[in-house]
Every structure is written in structure tokens, then in C-alpha cells.
């Protein structure tokens, strides 16, 4: 049986931790990485007699997510999902069940297709179990430690329709959703800190079939890479079963990242009966029209809008490479820098390339410039704009521009690590002075001319071949002469000026 004749059907459930200051039902800090069991109180420890009180800002963020995903925001309520587990302080989870706050939305993928969003509802996170003992694996642990700092952290669970057809598309969906969550301010988007976690419902069916195959739900997917690998593995596993004439069972499977495979956790028959019923300690949640309107009006541009704006800056067309750059720049939130540079007169393609390649390569340090741009607002001086404008004006060669950009970003980052505010660090940075310090002063035109003359004199044979050669030879030798001029000027020459000077000699 060929896999070409099969289709994979995927629905994703994404748990997003909301970027609130406090937890969903109490005033404890919502923070990652604190000392275990320090952000706890009677409510999030589930002590007898304690009662939940809903965090209004968490509701606001849930509504922002709903609005960004084109959902209907509606009157909702909370329920109790009952099951025993040591990481769960009350042995039930407060979650929205039959009346979620957001329903019937969709998410547009950069490739153009739409994935339906069934619902996006509020619920509380559980504590975190650490299995201690032989190897730290669940089956072999001798005991477990519970950290309730995460207990009661607000989550929005975003459930997609089974509209996704490949691992790559699933990754695209997850990545786009991440961008939207960050853009709404609902999430910091830090996958490595568990801010987003994925469950994937995977089934396979013959191409053209209208009915779904039996699905497996895969848990424990904490990165885009795991998500893609797990779906590919699971689809192949199911196809192999069917090819061998064996049934696919409806079950929950655990992704083992190290082994690169999914393993059965529990079958449908073993599934918990959660005994949902309305949470009597909370009152129904019905955001009025005015609140919904305020939330919709306060939403900034979403990633798709921001990509479209960059395409516009490029003149309306975007080739494959430019599209990738645009996506990367928006994913990293670097697009305000590009817009500012373009406004200051830099060519869009150049600004985009420097952001997508050089700035992105600086990691966290590069993102500081974007953070500063957001804090200081459009129109503020940005080192990025200064450097890109210097390059486009010929003051810096591309090589020099890249070096100055990197040095500038590293200096600002070090300044902030040393205690300076973002604003102060940006204000203190002076790319022009830095370029001078690095010896990147533009060569005077007659100095360049003298160097070119000298280089031609030293390489008469090559010059003759350049003058008389075919196109391929010419291109090659132009590169040779440019390199020699750069060597002679210790990189200070501007590449385009060298090309112009060589052109004049030909």
C-alpha cells in the first residue's frame, strides 16, 4: 500500500497559558520558574473552605483570543471536571464545558487555507509533577514531587476542527496561532516554558473518503518539532496497521520524544468519566456587548495583516525567499523595525533582509530592538534604521553594515544586562560612532580610484582576461578584483562603489 493514496486528518487542541499577573481564581503570582510552592494560597492549594473568584483580566484575554480567531463570543459558564490526580489540588479542574466563551471561529494559514476553530475556552492549569527515582520516567519513578505554583494558572484551550491534512500544515497552524496569541497580548509564546502545549488528534483515511478513520489523541507535545514528528510517526503507524489488516484503536497515546514514537496510554474503554456538572462556586459569565466591543476595538493588527503590510512595502510582490523573510520577521515581531527603516528612506528589501537574516541571528539580543521600537513608538530613532540607511546610502558596505548591526545589538544587550533601561541603552547607542570605531569610514572616492589602479597594475593578466572574456569569466574576475580591492582597503571599500569604479575602467 502506498502512502500516496492516504490522507492524514488532524485536529489540534492547543493549551495556552495566559500572560496575566495573577492566577485564574486567586491573587497568587502567575510566574514561571519561581521556587516550587511559593506562589500558593488556600484557593490554589484547594484547601477546605476556600472558594474561587474569577480573574477579570483572564476573561479579557480569552475574549481577545476569541476576537482574533473570528469567534462568536458569548455567555458562558464554568463546570467541574472530576478526576483524581495528585497534581490537581481539588481533584477536579474548573473548566468551561458545554458553554465555552468562544465558539465557531477560524484561523487563516499563511498559505491561504483556513482551519476552523471549534471553541476556545477558559480553564485552570494543574500543578506540575516531577517523578523522582530511576530515570525520572513515570513508570519507574519511586515517588513524585508536586509544585502547585502552576496550579490555577489561567489557560485558554483552543480546539480546531479536523481540517489539517499534514504534519507541515499542523506546524504552520501552531506557528500562526502562536503569532496571533502573542499579538493579542494573551501569551508570551514561550514554548520552551510550556506557555503553549499541543495535543493532536490524528487519523488516516483513503484519499477521497468522506468518513474519518479511527483517531488517536497524542499528548505531551511541547514544541513544533515534536508536533510534526509525532504526527508523521502516528500517521505512518496507523497506515501500517491498516496495511497489515489490523484495526486502529481509539485511544490516548503519549509521545516519547527521545524514542521518537507514540505509546498507548489508555484506551477509550479506560477513559475517565469526568462527571462534568456546573461549578456551583462560580456565577455565569456573560460579557456584555460593550465589553466585547471594547475588546474587539483594542485588538492590534494580527500577523496576517502585518505580513500583508510588508508585502505592500515591497511593492506588492513577494517571491519565495521574500515571503520566508516576511514570515520570519513577523513571527519574531521585528516588523516595526522594518517599517521604521522604510519610513526613514531605506529600501524595503534591504531592511527586510537585514531584519530576517542578521537581526534574527542575534537571538534574544536582536529582539530587544523590536521591544524598544514597541515601547518608544513609531518615529523614534532606532539603531536599526540608522545602520540600514547608512548602508543604503553607501556609507557602509553590506559586510560593514552587518558587522555594525551585530556589534550595536550586542552592545545594547550588554548595557541592558548591566542594568540600563531599554530606552537608555537605545539612546546611548551610536551606530555611526561604532562604525568609525570599527574602522569602517567610507573611503574617499579618489583613494578608491588609486587603489583600483594599483590592483589592476598588480594583476595585468587577470585584467586582460576580464576585459576580453565571456560573461562567465567576466563575472568571476569581477569578483576577484572586488576581493582584491577589499583586501587592500581592509574591507573599508563599499562594494557597489568598487563595482562602479571597475565598470568605469572597462
Amino acid at each position, binding site marked *: 500500500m502506498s502512502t500516496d493514496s492516504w490522507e492524514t486528518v488532524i485536529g489540534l487542541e492547543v493549551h495556552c497559558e495566559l500572560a496575566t499577573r495573577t492566577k485564574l481564581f486567586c491573587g497568587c503570582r502567575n510566574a514561571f520558574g519561581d521556587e516550587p510552592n511559593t506562589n500558593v494560597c*488556600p484557593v490554589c*492549594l*484547594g*484547601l*477546605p*473552605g*476556600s*472558594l*474561587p*473568584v*474569577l480573574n477579570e483580566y483572564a476573561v479579557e484575554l480569552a475574549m481577545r483570543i476569541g476576537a482574533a480567531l473570528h469567534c462568536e463570543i458569548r455567555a458562558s459558564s464554568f463546570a*467541574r471536571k*472530576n478526576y*483524581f490526580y*495528585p497534581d490537581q*489540588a*481539588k*481533584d*477536579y479542574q474548573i473548566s468551561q464545558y458545554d458553554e465555552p466563551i468562544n465558539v465557531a471561529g477560524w484561523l487563516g494559514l499563511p498559505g491561504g487555507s483556513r482551519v476552523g476553530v471549534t471553541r476556545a475556552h477558559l480553564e485552570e492549569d494543574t500543578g506540575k509533577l516531577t517523578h523522582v527515582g530511576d530515570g525520572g520516567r513515570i513508570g519507574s519513578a519511586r515517588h*513524585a514531587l*508536586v509544585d502547585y505554583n502552576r496550579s490555577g494558572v489561567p489557560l485558554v484551550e483552543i480546539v480546531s476542527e479536523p481540517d489539517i491534512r499534514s504534519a507541515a500544515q499542523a506546524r504552520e497552524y501552531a506557528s500562526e496561532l502562536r503569532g496571533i496569541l502573542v499579538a493579542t497580548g494573551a501569551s508570551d509564546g514561550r514554548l520552551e516554558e510550556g506557555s503553549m502545549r499541543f495535543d493532536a488528534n490524528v487519523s488516516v483515511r483513503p484519499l477521497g473518503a468522506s468518513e474519518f478513520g479511527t483517531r488517536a489523541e497524542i499528548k505531551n507535545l511541547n514544541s513544533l518539532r515534536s508536533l510534526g514528528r509525532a504526527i508523521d510517526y502516528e500517521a505512518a503507524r496507523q497506515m501500517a496497521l491498516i496495511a497489515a489488516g489490523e484495526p486502529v484503536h481509539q485511544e490516548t497515546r503519549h509521545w516519547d520524544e527521545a524514542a521518537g514514537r507514540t505509546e498507548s496510554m489508555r484506551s477509550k474503554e479506560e477513559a475517565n*468519566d469526568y*462527571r*462534568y*456538572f456546573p461549578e*456551583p*462556586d*462560580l*456565577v455565569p459569565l456573560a460579557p456584555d456587548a460593550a465589553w466585547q466591543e471594547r475588546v474587539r476595538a483594542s485588538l492590534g493588527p494580527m500577523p496576517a495583516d502585518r505580513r500583508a503590510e510588508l508585502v505592500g512595502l515591497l511593492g506588492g510582490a513577494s517571491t519565495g525567499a521574500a515571503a520566508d523573510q516576511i514570515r520570519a520577521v513577523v513571527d519574531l515581531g521585528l516588523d516595526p523595525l522594518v517599517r521604521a527603516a522604510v519610513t526613514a528612506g531605506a529600501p524595503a528589501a534591504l531592511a527586510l533582509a537585514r531584519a530576517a537574516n542578521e537581526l534574527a541571528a542575534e537571538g534574544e539580543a536582536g529582539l530587544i530592538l523590536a521591544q524598544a521600537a514597541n515601547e518608544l513608538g513609531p518615529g523614534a530613532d532606532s539603531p536599526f534604521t540608522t545602520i540600514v540607511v547608512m548602508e543604503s546610502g553607501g556609507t557602509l558596505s553590506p559586510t560593514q553594515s552587518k558587522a555594525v548591526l551585530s556589534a550595536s545589538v550586542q552592545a545594547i544587550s550588554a548595557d541592558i544586562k548591566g542594568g540600563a533601561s531599554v530606552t537608555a541603552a537605545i539612546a546611548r547607542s551610536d551606530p555611526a560612532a561604532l562604525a568609525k570605531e570599527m574602522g569602517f569610514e567610507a573611503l574617499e572616492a579618489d583613494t578608491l580610484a588609486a587603489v583600483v589602479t594599483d590592483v589592476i597594475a598588480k594583476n595585468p593578466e587577470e585584467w586582460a582576461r576580464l576585459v576580453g572574456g565571456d560573461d562567465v569569466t567576466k563575472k568571476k574576475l569581477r569578483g576577484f578584483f572586488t576581493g582584491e580591492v577589499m583586501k587592500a582597503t581592509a574591507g573599508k571599500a563599499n562594494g557597489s562603489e568598487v563595482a562602479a569604479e571597475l565598470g568605469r575602467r572597462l
Partner: protein
Amino acid sequence: MSGARELAAAVRAGERSARTVTEEALAAVAAGDGEVHAFLTVMGDEALAQADAVDAAVAQGRDPGPLAGVPVALKDNLCTRGIPTTCGSRILDGWRPPYDATVVELLRAAGAVALGKTNMDEFAMGSSTENSAFGPTRNPRGLDRVPGGSSGGSAAAVAAGFTPLGLGSDTGGSIRQPAALCGVVGLKPTYGSVSRYGLVAFASSLDQIGPFAANVEDAALLFDAVAAHDPRDSTSLPGVHPTTLEAVRAGADHVRVGLCPDLIEGCAPDVASRVYEAAEALSAAGAKVDEVRVPEFAYGLSAYYLIAPAEASSNLARYDGVRYGLRVEADDAAAMNTATRTAGFGAEVKRRIMLGTYALSAGYYDAYYAQAQRVRTLVVQAFDRAYASFDVLLGATAPTTAFALGAKVDDPMAMYMNDVCTIPSNLAGHPALSVPFGSGADGLPVGVQILAPALAEGLLFRVAGALEAGAPRPGTRS
């Protein structure tokens, strides 16, 4: 011991010290509680420290509050910081809450002195206080009788004269029924008028904290002190600040009283007779009494015994041995949960957890839990209909006077029937009050129940004040 109002007035005027009052109360408990067993924990040192703080305030010319120096008994499902809070269960063995319930804070702010924690049916499940893991409480009016339940300890503490005031909780009658059986006043307030923060939950949509007192005025005094909006309880009503004390002497003139046979006909003849006499007393006091039928009340008991266990099955899940209370070690976490819960819960609690788990299970939810909620709506609508023509309803509190210890322990259905008259008010979230009115054939107290719409506690206290004034002298048991 004198009434709470007189005590508070004397303490505020500097005529009596709160310390003396507290010492007398502690001495009364030491002398008498051996046979009654109203208390699980006596807060001797804490009570005296609190009394001294009240006296210091008086000495400095500050007002210690309307309950200055008045001892109050607390049902042991109210969280008290650093003081064991057992809910009458082994499963909370060793647990000391790190916080005070809102009512406990309010009592302290009003100058009251928490005297101790009182006995109760385990997790408030029961009508006789015999389901306590720490042994039963005896009825001070007849030591071979139960005090009722589940707040039997607080009712008995007031009836025995250990303290003028007590707090209990009422999920299906757990304040009113023991008040009736012990011959004291007990109020189940409007749902949401007294904060549940720090009340260990039995059935969250029904639970409500309320006062016990030896007389109607003292019950009003205590209710006024603990009823307040609390932002820590999402079901707490905004703008609650009752002044029921002034209603007690306002009389029942022109109050439209609906005498409700559906809250009388299932009762013993002597109890029924007292209720009809109470109606006559109210007529004599100027009330307009008429009969009103509310047949839907008959379905309340069945609905209650699905809704309350369903909520309890979830509320009591947290007692799993992981974080606090009892832990019975076993090979893995699930086995430890089972061993802990098997050892820690008594038979009645286990019965209700099983009932409630079943009622919420897939495939049964609609037939049981959802159907019970529909019946609950019917009961609410029936009340609305009755209150279109009446200001309050009148019926019995409990079907009989206090029954003998052990008489119903092996017959859960007979025990559940004790709540048949009190449950409708819990289902509707309405207030209801039990006030002593004469005695039964056995000489034991009878309580009559007054029911009112939400937030109409003032009317309850008007009628209760009139009934108290018109009641026959309490009988003594032959």
C-alpha cells in the same frame, strides 16, 4: 448565663469584663460538657486572649463592637486559623487551617469571643450528630435524645447554656432541625447573605452559615453581625447589611401568613398541634393567617438527595491524602488515595459520595442530576406562586421532637425524612427560621418554622418575635 444583648451591653459599659464572661463560659463547658459533648475543641487560651483584647478596647474607650465579650460556639466546619477544624471526620486528622473563615473574622471584628469548635455529623451529613467520628452529642433537654443535626453541637451548646450564641451551617435543615430539637432559635439565611469563604463545603449550592441563639433577639443580633458581602465568595450577594434586630419587636400585625399543610401533614400529631396553635397565636397578634397548599414541596427531598450528594462527591474529592489530613500509605498514589479515603470517611459520607458519583455518571446524569435540577426549579416556582399571596409561610421544622440516640442510625431513609420540611428553603436559596413553640407529648421542645422569600429575614424576625411572645411556657420533661 444571660442573653447576648445584655452581656454585650454590660461589657461595652464596662460593668462586666469580657474575661469574666469568658471564664464563666469555659467553666460551664468544663462542668457540663462531659455528658453533653457539644464541643470537639475548646479554645480556652485563644478565647481568653480575645476577651482580654475586648477588655483592653473598653479600657481605652474604643467600641469593641455589638457582640463585645459574647462567647460564640463555632461548628467545626468553619475554618479557624491554627485551630483543628475536623468537620467531624478522621480524614482531616491533624489539619489546622492557615486562615480564618470570613464569619470568624466578622465575629472578631464585632467583639465576639470564639469559645470552641462544636460537634457535627461528618461533613454535615446527618440529622442527629451521631455521624461524628468523635462520638455523638447528647440533647441537653433529655440526655438520652439526639440534639438533631448536623449542627447538633452548636445547638446543644446554646441549649445547655454554655454559650448564648452559636454558628452552624444549614444545607438541608442542619441549623433549623437541631434548633427545633434542642429548643433554641435557628436561622438558615438567604443563600449568599453570609459568606461561605472558610466554610468547608458539603453541597456548595445549598450550604449557608447561620446563627443559633437562646432567643429571637440574640439570633437577630448574631445574624446582623455575620451577614455581609464578601468578595472572596463569588456567590455572595452585593449590598447585604441587614438590621433585623429592630424587626424583632415590630410585631406581626398585618403580616400575611400562609399556613402550609404540606409542611405539617407528615409530622407527628403533637408537633402538628403546636404548629396550628402557633398560627392561632399569630392571628391573635394581628397577622392575617390563611392556608396555602404547595404540593411541590413533596418532591424536594428526592431532588435534594441527588443534588447534595452530587456536589458532595466532587467537594470531598480533595481529601486524597496528598496535601493535608490523614494519609494511609500504599504502593502508589491511586492506592494511597483509596486506602486513605476508606479509612478516613465514615459510612454515611461514603454512601453519599457513591450516590452523588452515580448521579453524575455518564448515561445517568440526565435521569438523576439534571432531573433533580428541574425539580428544584419547580420548587422555586411553587414558592413564587405562594409568595404572590403571602409574606411568609408557616410549618413544622422537624416531623418529631428529639428522638432517642441510636433510634435511626440503621435506617438512612428514616433519618433523611427529618429534613422533609426544611429542604425546600435550601433548594430555593430562601431564608427560614425555627423558633421554639411549646413542647411535644414527651415534654421535649417543638420548633415551628417560618419561611420567607430571599432577603426577607426582617419579616422572619418580626413573625418569630411575635411567636416567641405568644408561645406557651416551655414544658419540662416528666
